[in-house]
């Protein structure tokens, strides 16, 4: 089903040769094939089945320090020929930029390690349907659940990345994901919650009953929320959303934000940004990892990086272009982080909940209220009140606000880290944020 390396290599080589013929001094190209099959269910009935078969070519040509790109989904050589010509024409008249270049040869990935990222198992749609029936059966046991939706997606990918310095490599990856959304109702008011699993290998997928049960339990627990008074209070971030703090850090320490001067962490390298108990790691070489990769989107070798060590910011995320601007070598982070995580804290989840008399426990945020330039943060939120270590009642229609610089310095981590996504964090407490409610 998925096209092999030879087929993709042939197209990549064709693009490089033709670009050079037309006057390119350097060329980078990526050729991708992906096949995806999705089945979705609603209220125990088949709702949608979707099959996708897609090709893509991304080509960048350089003439000395001038650069331009094209993307296309049509791999026919007649189409590529026309597009390459267009790309070269645009390159010729694009102003040059001294930082434009392919990555340094000695930084390129030399060998591919099998990171166990491809499971060739095909899960036929009939099996997906059986799986989803079980998900929804479990999700709809309680009569307070009035609507369920569930989906299963299987994805297979193959790619080749190549450049005119001789780099030509790629590998297959796979992904299986399943989700359930449950809607609960009481006295005419509804709440919605979800659960999902995403894995490289089919055998590692959560049990369907578990997915359905978690989604339903969470939706029921949210019923009858209260709006609380505005106050300053410690806010605990559930594991589902605590990883958002790491995504913010990743944006703020990307070489582009640092070089452009648009990060609240500019000039903070080697300074204390988090409490000294905190370590943050980005490791691309985790077997079966959802964020794992052998090399970055430019073909540069990637290895594990300690971004934050004992609270001190140690590394930026560097690609070739902004690396040159900052006079730093690429550390294989073109395309961003890989498997990013906080090392575990010391407190158990229970001890964290009991560390003060009262907390706000947040399970969901909405809106895009983080500003990477100033560090200001303000988002809509819902969750629960915690009193004497127990979740007492659901809370919604409130906001939480602060500034990342201060929030980072007031983090306490629990010890319940799980590697479930590509970015992972344990439950975490941020001491004192402003909550706006009534």
């Amino acid at each position, binding site marked *: 089903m998925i096209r092999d390396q030879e087929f993709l290599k042939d197209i990549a080589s064709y693009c490089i040769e033709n670009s050079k013929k037309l006057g390119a001094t350097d060329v980078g190209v990526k050729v991708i094939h992906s096949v995806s099959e999705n089945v979705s269910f609603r209220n125990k009935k088949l709702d949608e089945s979707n*099959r996708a078969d897609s090709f893509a070519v991304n080509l960048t040509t350089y003439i000395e320090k001038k650069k*331009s790109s094209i993307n296309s989904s*049509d791999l026919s050589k007649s189409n590529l020929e026309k597009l390459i010509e267009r790309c070269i024409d645009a390159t010729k008249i694009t102003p040059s930029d001294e930082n434009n270049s392919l990555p340094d040869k000695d930084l390129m990935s030399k060998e591919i390690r099998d990171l166990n990222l491809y499971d060739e198992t095909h899960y036929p749609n009939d099996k997906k349907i059986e799986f989803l029936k079980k998900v929804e059966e479990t999700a709809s046991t309680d009569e307070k659940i009035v609507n369920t939706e569930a989906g299963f997606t299987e994805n297979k990918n193959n790619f080749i990345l190549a450049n005119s310095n001789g780099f030509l490599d790629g590998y297959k990856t796979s992904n299986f994901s399943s989700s359930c959304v449950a*809607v609960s109702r009481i006295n005419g008011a509804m709440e919605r919650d979800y659960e999902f699993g995403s894995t490289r290998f089919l055998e590692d997928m959560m049990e369907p009953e578990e997915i359905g049960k978690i989604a339903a339990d969470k939706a029921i627990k949210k019923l009858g929320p209260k709006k609380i008074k505005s106050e300053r209070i410690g806010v605990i971030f559930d594991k589902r959303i605590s990883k958002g703090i790491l995504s913010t850090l990743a944006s703020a320490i990307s070489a582009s934000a640092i070089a452009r001067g648009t990060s609240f962490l500019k000039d903070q390298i080697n300074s204390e940004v988090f409490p000294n108990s905190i370590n943050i790691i980005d490791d691309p070489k985790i077997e079966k990892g959802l964020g794992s990769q052998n090399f970055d989107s430019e073909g540069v070798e990637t290895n594990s990086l300690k971004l934050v060590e004992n609270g001190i910011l140690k590394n930026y995320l560097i690609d070739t272009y902004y690396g040159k601007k900052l006079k730093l070598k690429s550390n294989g982070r073109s395309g961003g982080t890989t498997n990013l995580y906080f090392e575990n804290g010391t407190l158990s989840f229970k001890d964290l909940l009991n560390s003060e008399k009262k907390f706000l426990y947040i399970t969901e945020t909405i809106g895009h*209220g983080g500003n990477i330039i100033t560090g200001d943060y*303000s988002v809509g939120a819902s969750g629960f009140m915690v009193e004497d270590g127990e979740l007492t009642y659901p809370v919604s*229609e409130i906001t939480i606000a602060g500034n990342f610089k201060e929030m980072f310095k007031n983090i306490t981590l629990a010890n319940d880290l799980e590697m479930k996504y590509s970015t992972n964090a344990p439950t975490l407490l941020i001491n004192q944020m402003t909550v706006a409610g009534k």
Partner: protein
Amino acid sequence: MSKFFKETDIDTSQAEAIVTETLKNCDDGELYLENHKSESIVLDDNKIKSSTYNSDQGYGFRAVTGEVVAYSHSNDISKESLRKSSDNLKDTLKSKKGTYNHEIPKTNSKYYENINPIESKTFDSKIDLLKSVNNYLRSKGSIVNQVTANFLGEHKSIEIIRSDNQILKDDRPLVRFNVSVVLEKDGKKETGVYGVGGRQSYDDYLKDGSWKDVCNEAFRIANVNLESKPAPAGEMKVVLGPGWPAILIHEAIGHGLEGDFNRKKTSAFHSLMGQQVASEGVTIVDDGTLHQRRGSLTIDDEGTPTENTVLIENGILKNYMQDRLNARLMGTKSTGSGRRESYKHVVLPRMRNTMMLSGKYSQDEMISSVDKGIFAVSFGGGQVDITSGKFVFNCTEAYEINNGKIGSPIKGATLIGDGPSILKEVSLVGNDMKLDPGIGTCGKAGQGVPVGVAQPSILINKMTVGGTKL
């Protein structure tokens, strides 16, 4: 005749035969073909950061029976690929039997010209204009820390082949021009962003130096924000300015009135048809027929001509927005709201240009009636949970109001409210309805589509402002 089969091993009549054969036991469906060209040219940090041209073509083959949608898409337009898709659709629906609904309204209206904006302005002149933007903004002094400007242009041709050999076609231009500036003063940095666009050529938005107005507006917003103080936290009165702040309407009301969520009864509005959902004097429409607007469409992505759909009239809920599937299942007609991001995506009922119409009050009257509150002029993005009805949006330009007077600017804060009740809190509707500048993209189920919004100034009695100052 279709132009999509020109360089393939299949001709129009063979494709039509496959469509008719595949859909013979289905309620609805079509073969949707799309050719999409787009470009992005970005100036950043004094340099042309990137210039990219995208060329994408493919088909999405859909069969619908009852509530079930079978979909298969590919960028390989060939006999074998279409056959494979056809088998896939038939296999999914093998146990179902439907009756094809041939009825689809016709239109002679056109709301935009068939131009290709990418080709109608030379690459050189786009690069030159971006450089002029950079020079113009940087000439405003050393306070200017960073300038980003970009062109986004596209041309999309679509053809819809239905079971009875009907072919419906549309050609859609779309452009957007954005400027973002970062200012730095006394160690404090703030951003201002502004943009314009719609379904015309770039020059229609940039001629006679009007690109300078875009730059000036971005600069003005950043400058205002440099003086901003921490925003208040808690419930208070909120005056919204006209135009773009109507994304409040889009988030709070619009999504909840899309047909799919109401058929599935997952929208907080599903049981409220014919009921009072807003203050008297509040009328909201979703209009796909405005000339050259970003959210306008001659036909939707199922081939239905668009229309001006009244959603709420004088406070009473009148209509949902429908695509063909949800309309059929709810016993009503499509409102021409069936949209998809591309051939890779299934059709969903979506908004076009969502507008609250003018009332009779002036903005001054609203502000002078507020003792303590905020005046919000511009927003970033928003989001809604359609089930609980809770929605948010982020201010990018706002001021405090004290004793009926506009005070200091305040830092960006999130506002949160409850969709079904917020319109009942609208106490005054202004006489100054304005369209947004043509920059909106709406996301739903992972699909982004261009949309517009419009509203007059409005006074909301009570909303929660998510600042840091108690």
